[in-house]
């Protein structure tokens, strides 16, 4: 249920898979947004809203767009060697599993599975020595949260990153009311065994290596982007004056800050700079000063609605 541990396990299995074998790993994450390898998290995820609901920001090592996970979602990872890799077979295994559950799904475009043109499953791929094909299966995902966290104001400037494509989504439960994640898991495993008809082998897990990989996925530098100190520009008219702010974030800390204002107190920008530089951009910022101007500017920094 810990997204960082799950991705660590997935990476470990991708590296450790013996030749001539196929593996299906099924896993779930608690409340989090998972972005693609080369995305800008500030562009894809409303971090503040998500963090206030205890959601976690996560970066995976496959490409593509941002997705929301909660326990209404089941993730699958097909891992095979290069020779036996077939995205089509993997999709067929999923479609067959759903058929057992009275759900008719089809492939759409390159990376989605849909029901009546609405997406319930998004896929991404990694070619290393072995191949990984993983994705989401929405059984009963909180769509309100999904929309809330993945909607980000377009005022933000980010530069060259991979952007997400928005889709209309559907939960499998809307098609088969009685479906549970457990039943879907069972159907997928049966469908997988039917398809490959292979004997089962055991992979011995190196717990230290998993721990190491987990730490790597948890690192702020990895999640927020190593070189991408990111620039934002915001402005707002308050009762006490007009403010224009430019700031940069590095690992979600305010690394640069410029404030221009026509308010009468000319020391305000410098005071704010002294307080805010190198602080994490989150709700704790409110606690450093009670001044109205200060509180207004923190509102501006934190809230998308001001834009």
């Amino acid at each position: 249920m810990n997204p960082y541990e799950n991705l660590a396990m997935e990476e470990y299995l991708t590296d450790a898979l013996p030749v001539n074998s196929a593996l299906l790993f099924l896993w779930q994450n608690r409340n989090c947004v998972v972005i693609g390898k080369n995305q800008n998290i500030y562009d894809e995820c409303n971090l503040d809203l998500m963090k206030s609901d205890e959601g976690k920001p996560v970066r995976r090592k496959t490409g593509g767009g941002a997705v929301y996970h909660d326990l209404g979602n089941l993730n699958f990872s097909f891992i095979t060697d290069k020779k036996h890799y077939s995205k089509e077979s993997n999709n067929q295994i999923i479609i067959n599993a759903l058929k057992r559950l009275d759900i008719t799904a089809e492939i759409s475009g390159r990376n989605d599975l849909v029901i009546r043109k609405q997406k319930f499953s998004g896929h991404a791929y990694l070619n290393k020595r072995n191949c990984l094909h993983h994705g989401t299966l929405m059984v009963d995902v909180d769509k309100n949260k999904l929309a809330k966290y993945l909607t980000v104001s377009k005022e933000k400037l980010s530069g060259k990153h991979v952007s997400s494509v928005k889709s209309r989504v559907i939960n499998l439960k809307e098609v088969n009311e009685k479906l549970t994640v457990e039943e879907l898991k069972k159907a997928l495993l049966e469908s997988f065994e039917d398809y490959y008809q292979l004997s089962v082998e055991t992979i011995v897990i190196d717990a230290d290596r998993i721990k190491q990989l987990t730490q790597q996925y948890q690192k702020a530098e990895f999640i927020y982007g190593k070189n991408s100190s990111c620039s934002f520009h915001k402005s707002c008219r308050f009762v006490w004056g007009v403010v224009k702010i430019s700031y940069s974030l590095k690992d979600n800390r305010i690394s640069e800050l410029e404030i221009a204002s026509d308010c009468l107190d000319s020391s305000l920008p410098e005071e704010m700079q002294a307080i805010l530089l190198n602080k994490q951009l989150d709700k704790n910022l409110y606690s450093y000063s009670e001044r109205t101007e200060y509180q207004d500017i923190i509102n501006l920094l934190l809230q998308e609605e001001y834009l």
Partner: protein
Amino acid sequence: MFNYPKKLMYTETHEWVKKEGDIYVVGISDYAQDALGDIVFVNLPEVDDEVFVQEPFGDVESVKAVSDLYSPVSGVICAVNEDLLDNPALLNEDPYRNWLIKVEDVSDTEEFLDAESYQQFCESQG
């Protein structure tokens, strides 16, 4: 079909290599860029990083997948094609003009294929 310039050497992981004096220039082949599809992001190492024969030195994200890039030589990076970071699609447009890295102090190389053998190899991949 695909272009396999005679003057280059190739690997089975679809990189091309050109020797310029003591420096090895590395890129991806026409076959590779076509198999990858539209490339949307390139991650490359930095100058002075070490690379090792048949070990990953970076990766490309295409609309299909993230794929590792394998170094055909062991050595030290002396140049990185930074144009690709701003415009990854250059790899699709002209994979032989748009190299990825240049490597110096080369201590080891893999067994390269010539253009003809590489073409045969690609055609056998279906």
